[in-house]
């Protein structure tokens, strides 16, 4: 065997060793390039075309966007996602933090209680929506039950009221996700160094002051993660609205996700639907990109 033969074989082995990992990764990467980024470009392009029932490629400039922003339905959807999103994030964070702090007091059966708080996360929003839809229905649900107990003037018909229905979405969504937020905060609490706290306690700080001054400020990363997860879920909310209110009464609980679906697939206004999807993507990118960027840089 000659020297050149050996080095030739080694060269081939090196080459294979170099290429094989990339080869293994490439199908996944190709799929994501086409089906995520290629499709984003495609939909973005459609938002500048006169597509109606089917994609069409006649460019119309910004027309879809100007139409979109003049539509009352889009106005309602945006207003709703702002109301829903801010209440959803706020209540989930407050409730999640409170439950985490309560559970962090050396509670007996903590694991069991945690399981109960967390299980809604395992359910489909369609299941959650179905359960709450009938529970909040004034004809058979809470209102009827309380009345049958003797409080005959009791009223709770938010789900049938245009002004209040959006809050029933908040109720159901908070029920589903707040336990998950609790778990994030609990993990944060368990990671806190207690030396500082011991010192503060010796200085005579009250429990309340300990939490306010020392514990909660240290939970910043948990707050960040919770905010990003919840904001992203709020913008994407679709199933829950479909199951709980169907966007109604009327259009009172339409969100951008339901707007996009109905304009694209039932009203045959694909150009406008694509424009609304683009706006949704922008909103999510504005939240996710900085977060992922900082996460990836930290880990390097």
């Amino acid at each position, binding site marked *: 065997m000659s020297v050149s033969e050996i080095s030739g074989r080694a060269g081939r082995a090196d080459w294979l060793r170099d290429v*094989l990992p990339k080869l*293994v*990764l490439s199908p*996944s*990467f190709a*799929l*994501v390039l086409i*089906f*995520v*980024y290629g*499709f*984003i470009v495609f*939909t973005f392009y459609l938002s500048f075309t006169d597509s109606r029932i089917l*994609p069409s490629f006649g460019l119309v400039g910004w027309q879809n966007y100007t139409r979109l922003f003049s539509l009352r339905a889009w106005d309602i959807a945006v207003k709703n996602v702002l109301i829903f999103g801010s209440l959803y994030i706020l209540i989930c964070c407050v409730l999640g933090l409170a*439950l985490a702090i309560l559970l962090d*007091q*050396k*509670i007996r059966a*903590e694991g069991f209680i945690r399981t*109960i*708080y*967390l299980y809604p*996360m*395992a*359910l*489909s*929003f*369609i*299941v959650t929506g*179905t*359960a*709450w839809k*009938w*529970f909040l229905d004034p004809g*058979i649900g809470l209102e009827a039950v309380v009345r*049958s107990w003797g409080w005959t003037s009791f009223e709770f018909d938010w789900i049938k009221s245009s002004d209040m229905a959006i809050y029933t979405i908040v109720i159901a969504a908070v029920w589903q996700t707040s336990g998950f937020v609790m*778990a994030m905060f*609990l993990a944060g609490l368990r990671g*806190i160094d*207690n030396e500082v706290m*011991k010192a503060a*306690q010796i200085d005579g700080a009250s*429990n309340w002051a300990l939490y306010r001054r020392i514990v909660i400020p240290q939970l910043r*990363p948990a707050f960040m993660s919770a905010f*990003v*997860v919840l904001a992203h879920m709020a913008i*994407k909310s*679709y*199933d829950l609205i*479909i199951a709980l209110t169907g966007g109604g009464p009327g259009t009172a609980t339409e969100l951008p996700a339901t707007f996009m*679906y109905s304009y694209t*697939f039932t009203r045959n206004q*694909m150009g406008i639907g694509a424009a609304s*999807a*683009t706006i*949704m*993507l922008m909103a*999510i*990118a504005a939240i996710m990109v900085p977060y*992922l960027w900082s996460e990836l840089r930290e880990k390097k």
Partner: protein
Amino acid sequence: MATAAATTNAGAGATQVIRTGAGSRYVIYTLLILFCLYYLLPLYVMVVNSLKPLSEIQAGGMMALPDALTFAPWASAWSSAQVGVEATGLRPYFLNSILMVVPAVAISTVLGALNGYVLTKWRFRGDTIVFGLLLFGCFIPFQMVLIPMARMLGLMGIAGTVPGLIFVHLVYGIGFSTLYFRNYYQQFPTELVRAAMIDGAGFFTIFRRIMLPSSGPIAVVCVIWQFTNIWNDFLFGASFSDFDSQPMTVALNNLVQSSTGVKEYNVHFAGAIMAALPTLLVYIVAGRFFVRGLMAGSVKG
């Protein structure tokens, strides 16, 4: 990372220091139990009302235990209720969901493991960018891909079929499974991999002999995550399936929203529990491993 749900009893928590009196402990336990009731309430409503005749619900007895216990709503929801146009019950759709979930979860987990292995142990120029692109793909609003995906599935000849749904879930599941395995393998000692390389072990040998045997915990996390997400998906199911390929969530929604005839609430509740059971079972049986695996994978909060 975004998906942290990790909690342990590892000790060094804030409350090692906090002392609470007997009075406040009473308040704490009361509050905790009240919240248990709050989280259990919808489940209670679903279960008791799926076991009573419709007339009891209509009479305002939603919170009461069944007077006349009956399993008829379950039988109806499973095999005879009107779902969409046909009175097939939810059974065929339950099967669709199983047929869809199993391959989608299996393939995306295997791909995620291989990707995570490459991205941590066979690093190359630009690997962080590749990972970043995969990761961002998890979080896009899927409204952005619905229109071209509908066309693409048509071109591929799998529109409105279960294989079509498997493909869609596979594509959009890769990002998360890669994330899990990458974060887990990052902790895995690279020296071991180096040593095996020097001994002449190849790419797949190292993966099979060294990485896979220690991947149990993260595989559990990944499988639970993907199973829950894919089983619970509604948007893709509603967009890309036909009457005979609909998954369980879409069928349940059709059952509940159907406007013809009397609203059979008890049947709806029974159907909702059926749709919830697989993921609930997974959560109850394997939830502990999920939390433990997340800790092992240092998927930080």
